[in-house]
């Protein structure tokens, strides 16, 4: 896992050559390109509604106003969706981490009849994208009566074979001696798992949790299919669903977009290092 070493290992400052200066300029230009669409969304959301489609474009309208934010916040839907998104993402993340860690520990550390076959079955699931199952899965949800419920969104997302694979590889590398000492002291496997193995695995569990949270928060297709009642929608699904009701109110539309995009950006700004590490680790380890 040397991939996590900090970039600057030489301890000396890099020299400013013309080449490096050119690289800096190129990088800054690319930063501008990447930031502009977001900046434009914010700028539009702060304009009076009548000035949002002016040409040639102006970054700042005649006044800076938070009217649009006030309007969309007052409508109430947005707060409900925000709550739904947080609830669904947190529940999905907790369930995914617990279920996948337990399963991975079982596959890595215990032996029972059919273990190899079952693990093979789980690994095969890595190749099944959830998107190809939408039709039969939806029919199943209708039969289970889970359409338009939180559980209907959450449950199909919690058994993630790739996460089991990542955790099995991690547990395989943990020395057994740590657990054995506890067994000798009379602890059962259940207790050893929760009090020794889980705390020991915090970094990899954090990586799995971060990855799961981001993908659940941003998941569109499944919540879009399984919720028809606006009150139960997640933030992105709700926004897309009601966009036509915004009419031509661009400032309000962009205010909603900013509110919907902001939570994860704030989380990222706070936990940049952990998130970068978690995403890179989980993204690569899946291979």
């Amino acid at each position: 896992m040397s991939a996590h070493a900090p970039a600057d290992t030489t301890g000396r400052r890099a020299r400013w050559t013309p080449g490096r200066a050119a690289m800096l300029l190129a990088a800054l230009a690319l930063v501008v390109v990447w930031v502009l669409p977001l900046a434009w969304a914010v700028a539009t959301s702060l304009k009076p509604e009548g000035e949002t489609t002016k040409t040639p474009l102006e970054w700042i309208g005649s006044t800076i106003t938070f009217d649009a934010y006030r309007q969309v916040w007052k409508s109430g839907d947005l707060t409900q969706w925000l709550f739904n998104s947080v609830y669904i993402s947190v529940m999905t993340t907790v369930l995914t981490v617990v279920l996948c860690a337990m399963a991975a520990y079982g596959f890595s550390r215990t032996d029972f009849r059919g273990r190899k076959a079952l693990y093979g079955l789980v690994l095969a699931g890595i190749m099944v994208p959830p998107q190809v199952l939408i039709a039969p899965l939806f029919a199943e949800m209708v039969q289970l009566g889970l359409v338009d419920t939180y559980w209907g969104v959450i449950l199909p997302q919690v058994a993630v074979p790739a996460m089991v694979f990542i955790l099995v590889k991690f547990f395989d590398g943990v020395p057994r001696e740590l657990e054995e000492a506890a067994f000798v002291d009379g602890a059962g496997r259940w207790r050893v798992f929760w009090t020794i193995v889980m705390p020991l695995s915090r970094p990899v569990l954090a990586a799995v949790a971060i990855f799961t949270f981001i993908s659940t928060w941003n998941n569109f297709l499944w919540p879009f299919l399984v919720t028809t009642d606006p009150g139960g929608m997640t933030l992105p699904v709700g926004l897309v669903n009601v966009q036509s009701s915004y009419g031509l109110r661009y400032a309000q539309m962009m205010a909603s977009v900013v509110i919907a995009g902001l939570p994860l950006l704030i989380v990222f700004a706070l936990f940049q290092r952990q998130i970068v590490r978690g995403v890179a680790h989980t993204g690569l380890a899946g291979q």
Partner: protein
Amino acid sequence: MSVTHPATVPPAAGARTPAAEPATRPMTVRRHWSEHGLVFVAPFLLFYGLFLVWPLLSGIGMSMSSDNIAGTGGEFVGFDNYAEALQDPNVWSSLWNTVWFTVLSTVPLVVTGLVLALLSHHLRIVQWLWRLSWFAPFLLPSGVVGLLFLWVIFPSDFGFADQALAAVGLNPGIGWLTDERYAMLSIVLTTVWWTVGFNFLLYLAALQAIPQHLYEAAELDGAGAWHRLRHITLPLLSRTTGVVVVLQVLASLKIFDQVYIMTGGGPDDSTRPILQYVYQAGFTGYRIGYASAVSYIFFALILIVSLVQLRLSRRTREENAR
């Protein structure tokens, strides 16, 4: 990642002689190692069975029926749905759109990801700025990205893209999302902006894993920056590139969100991906049997890509082991 881990060594077969231990110890330990295995695995398997294995199997049954959206009310029709799908021009056109999007998006997404990672890695300063601006869009939901580009970036005339062209003296008035010539390209642009940060991070992690002394040695030998890039960095990144390309191809094939939100598959179905056709057949056309059949055709395509990838990665691993 661990090559040889201590866990494979039987616990009692260490430096300690078994005879010196109390007779009960190895036995309890062995019992502990094996007990409760299924208890740990069962909860996962319950959900896995209910929401992956079962729909996968029941979907095969459905694809051979004329079921409605609730999965009921149909009768067995054998392979009729598959036969119909293979003759359905909409299946072929949306498959083609999906593949075309994958081709158009994979190259810029991989190359841009690499370039951004190289810039960030070699500049070594203000890392947080590079990460924040290039990776942050990846953290936005597709709904947010889609609405942003649909409402204020790509509208003709007053949209930001057109106004930016006008600012440098070009003619605005491009139908970014409404003109068949540009719609797919606009979706590719949006996707690159949105998701390149993921590839950027994967490349960045790989770059940071390259031992610094290789560069120092090359520098002592008088190798220039370009030389070091061509003969050290890029060869050492080839495995990562393989992974990134495969992940990207698989992700691009599953495109749905941004197209559905930005163009609804239009103009004239020219951007409609296969997943949207599955959605239309099943969820707005109420033919879940037919939708399942189309899903499995799409699944076959994904499986082929995955299997090719498996072969390739096995081969490179064998080559590396040699």
